[in-house]
């Protein structure tokens, strides 16, 4: 058993729902108790969808368990087919139904429903949401794609045709999937390439049948589409474009990879957006070396780290993901930035790591947004799990050159602006301008508040992590009052580090009492 407070991912059948809800003409019959229907609100509330997810739940109750829950499933499946007349159905069990072992797959098979039925085996007690989405999409592609289909000849009587690609991975409830698809479709069009099928979001089962007619596949979200892409590579000999176009550099590489795979000329001039110049312009100088902690799904986290380091000049001080399936990618990236990879789905561990890293900016999920709020750190959201705020009314992609513009704005906005930061440093003790006041453009709601106190136990539990064992003196940590006052003048986001360095220096050099001089000695010692 695992004690869980907040979770990054739902159960695997929610992943299947994300695939089904993104599609049209598909219906999901889920063997599940009442209560599991809560999942509908994820889509109708968070994403503001104006249709119910295409899911029929059997909603069995305790009194059904002694009788025939299998019959209940068949009745639900039959009625769902009659009512919705889908092109195809997926059937499966949620965590509770998995335990009663009714075998929805076998039951549905014998029913002779008037459409293809694809059974899903999603082990609820060992797998999670992203895996469920990936498996569902893979099973749909395997079950529906016509293996005989191939792309039409490259040249016809009318002349050479445009290359065509499948755009794979977007789902309902995905972080900015809606806009990413539009942006990448637009970019491909500029390169003279058509999108054959975008799936799962926006596709019908009939579209999956003709996946083999595309020249190649673009794996936009590996968490969801990598498995399906590799099956299509084997089945249709379609190449897969694997570069995820988040950030200016990654988008450039994406363009060149796409052109190579599609066999088209690299275009002379593609509008690359403003991000590059915005970052080079002198106002952005103050972004240099900003300490940033990054956590999310592996694909978004790795991409964010690259953008942060290469395109904004930040310093990556923490990098991690919650989806173990992609731990390898995170480890490789963490090595580039010289940080310890953090692979966990335990919210409290992430919180501790953020506190210890003392970043100036957190790029994370809605969970990290809450952590950052508590620690009074600026934060921008880069990845699912999502919240209603992550579905903005405006066009706001993460991918492509416009996506890079969006990243610049959304990551820089929460920070204290350039000159204001200098003033804060100069007039630290100013009564209405202290660093407790926070950035002026973000309002003064939190101005006088001290950092939201951690619950006492939590603070106690974390104390040993935050400070090294103090040298033996009668003062706490051996600090003189003057030294502590001087420490207070150091910006809050590096104060913890300065304190640790000074205490380490004192311990290593046998200094029992930490004076103002010790502080500056340590500063010089570690300044390299």
């Amino acid at each position, binding site marked *: 058993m695992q004690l869980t407070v907040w979770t990054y991912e739902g159960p695997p059948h929610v992943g299947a729902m994300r695939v089904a809800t993104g599609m049209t003409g598909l219906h999901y019959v889920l063997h599940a108790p009442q209560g599991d229907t809560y999942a*509908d609100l994820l889509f109708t509330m968070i994403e503001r969808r104006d249709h119910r997810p295409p899911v029929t739940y059997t909603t069995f*109750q305790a009194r059904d368990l002694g009788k025939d829950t299998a019959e209940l499933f068949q009745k639900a499946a039959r009625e769902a087919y009659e009512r919705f007349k889908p092109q195809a159905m997926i059937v499966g069990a949620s965590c509770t139904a998995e335990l009663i072992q009714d075998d929805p797959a076998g039951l549905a098979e014998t029913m002779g429903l008037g459409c293809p039925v694809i059974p899903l085996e999603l082990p609820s007690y060992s797998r999670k949401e992203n895996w469920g989405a990936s498996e569902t999409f893979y099973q749909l592609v395997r079950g529906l794609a016509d293996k005989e289909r191939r792309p039409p000849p490259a040249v016809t009587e009318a002349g050479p045709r445009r290359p065509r690609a499948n755009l794979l991975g977007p789902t309902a409830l995905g972080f900015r999937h809606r806009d990413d698809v539009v942006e990448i479709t637009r970019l491909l069009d500029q390169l003279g390439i058509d999108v054959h099928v975008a799936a799962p979001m926006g596709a019908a089962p009939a579209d999956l049948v003709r996946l083999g007619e595309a020249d190649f596949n673009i794996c936009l979200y590996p968490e969801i589409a990598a498995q399906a892409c590799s099956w299509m590579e084997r089945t249709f000999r379609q190449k897969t474009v694997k570069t995820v176009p988040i950030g200016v550099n990654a988008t450039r590489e994406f363009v060149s990879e796409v052109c190579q795979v599609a066999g088209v000329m690299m275009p002379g001039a593609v509008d690359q957006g403003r991000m590059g110049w915005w970052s080079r312009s002198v106002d952005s100088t103050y972004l240099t070396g900003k300490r940033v902690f990054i956590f999310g799904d592996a694909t978004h986290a790795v991409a964010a780290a690259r953008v942060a380091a290469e395109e904004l000049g930040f310093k990556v001080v923490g990098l991690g993901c919650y989806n173990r399936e992609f731990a390898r990618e995170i480890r490789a990236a963490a090595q580039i930035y010289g940080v310890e990879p953090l692979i966990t789905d335990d919210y409290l561990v992430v919180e501790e790591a953020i506190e210890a890293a003392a970043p100036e900016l957190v790029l994370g999920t809605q969970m990290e947004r809450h952590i950052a709020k508590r620690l009074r750190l600026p934060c921008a959201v880069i990845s699912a799990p999502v919240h209603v705020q992550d579905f903005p009314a405006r066009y706001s992609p993460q991918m492509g050159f416009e996506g890079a513009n969006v990243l610049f704005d959304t990551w820089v906005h929460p920070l204290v602006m350039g000159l204001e930061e200098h003033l804060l440093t100069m007039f630290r003790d100013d009564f209405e301008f202290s660093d407790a006041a926070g950035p002026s453009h973000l309002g003064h709601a939190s101005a006088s508040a001290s950092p939201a106190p951690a619950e006492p136990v939590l603070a106690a539990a974390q104390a040993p992590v935050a400070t090294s064992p103090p040298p033996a003196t009668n003062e706490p940590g051996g600090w003189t009052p003057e030294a502590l006052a001087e420490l207070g003048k150091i910006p809050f986001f590096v104060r913890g580090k300065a304190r640790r360095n000074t205490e380490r220096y004192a311990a290593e050099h046998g200094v029992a009492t930490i004076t103002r001089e010790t502080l500056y000695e340590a500063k010089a010692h570690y300044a390299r």
Partner: protein
Amino acid sequence: MSSSDRPSQPLPGCEAPPLGLDGILRERGQREVFCGLTGIIWLHRKIQDAFFLVVGSRTCAHLLQSAAGVMVFAEPRFGTAIIEEKDLAGLADANEELDRVVTRLLARRPDIRMLFLVGSCPSEVIKLDLSRAAQRLNQRFAPNCHVLNYSGSGIETTFTQGEDACLAALVPELPFSDTKQLMLVGSLPDVVEDQFLRLFADLGIEAVVSLPARRAGQMPGVGPNTRYLLAQPFLAETGAALDKRGAVHLPSLFPFGAEGTTAWLHAAAQAFGVGEERFAIVTAPPRERARKALAAHRTKLAGRRIFFLPDSQLEVPLARFLAGELGMELVEVGTPYLHKGHLIDELAALPPGTLISEGQDVERQLDRVQISRPDLTVCGLGLANPLERTGLSTKWAIELVFSPIHGYEQAGDLAELFARPLNRRDLLRV
């Protein structure tokens, strides 16, 4: 229920739905409702030193997180012990695992005085005996922490039945008390509870206690001289458990709106020998305030047609309030479960011929919504936006559970919750 009790054909537009002998439409089909775990979201705020540990699956944890909507509390007083494959495969002893999780939890949170082990669908299907686990853990952690258990599973409970199960689990643990006292049963927002306590004091009823109390150490005593008022209509099990302890129920309307509140207070006043004159003097001013507040919304709501989908079991009392005090027309009053005993006065106060439905077949019920095109549909969060898209105004049922709506001073707020969607619709030009 056998399948022959169900309507056998999808409802065509003009046909009246087939009713039971008692005039109530009973349906069995897909139920679009929360499970009882959801109650943890308000219960953990009400009992301020209690922790609710769901023994369940990732789905349970995800439900709590999603239903809570926002993650306000960095480390909330609820969590889930997620059952993993090794627990099911017998590689790990589920009871040992649970003890380990609880020990770690209580070491981390020594401020917790009461721990509820909350059963879920998976824990019940694998027959994990949480009552034995609670006994065992209680011996280990008493007297610092009292360990109890109840089921909030979706196979046993619907939404507010979770609170019923929780309070029913508390009742046998209450100390014996011979005091002549009034007990308010059901978790109310503190502000509302305080208003009621002041009213009872003004009426001269001195000994008034609440179940649940705000802290684990302050749970009231109970005995044959206890008279109890139910503040919520969904407390069937809790009522039965109190009866077993000798307490006596004071049947009444529920305290929604001016009339419901008056009837509710009056039931207590009669039981405690408060004179009619004093009752009138004490209740007249707030009653008048409530009337005034309601009048403002009556113009908006009178004559409007409302459809309740089943959700919280508050539907029948709220329908009575909306019809009786605000002049709304009731198209259908759906409720997940109809406790006729506790609702006897409420049912009698509904306009004659009101269609009441118990249980749900969501697709058919939505067909009825579309056919009748009510002015306002009260429904769960999963259905609201899809209905709005078809041009219907909706009210989220969950807001009725999360907001202070009981008593005189909240009567206007309660009416406003129903008027707001209609006002908003009139306001928007987009």
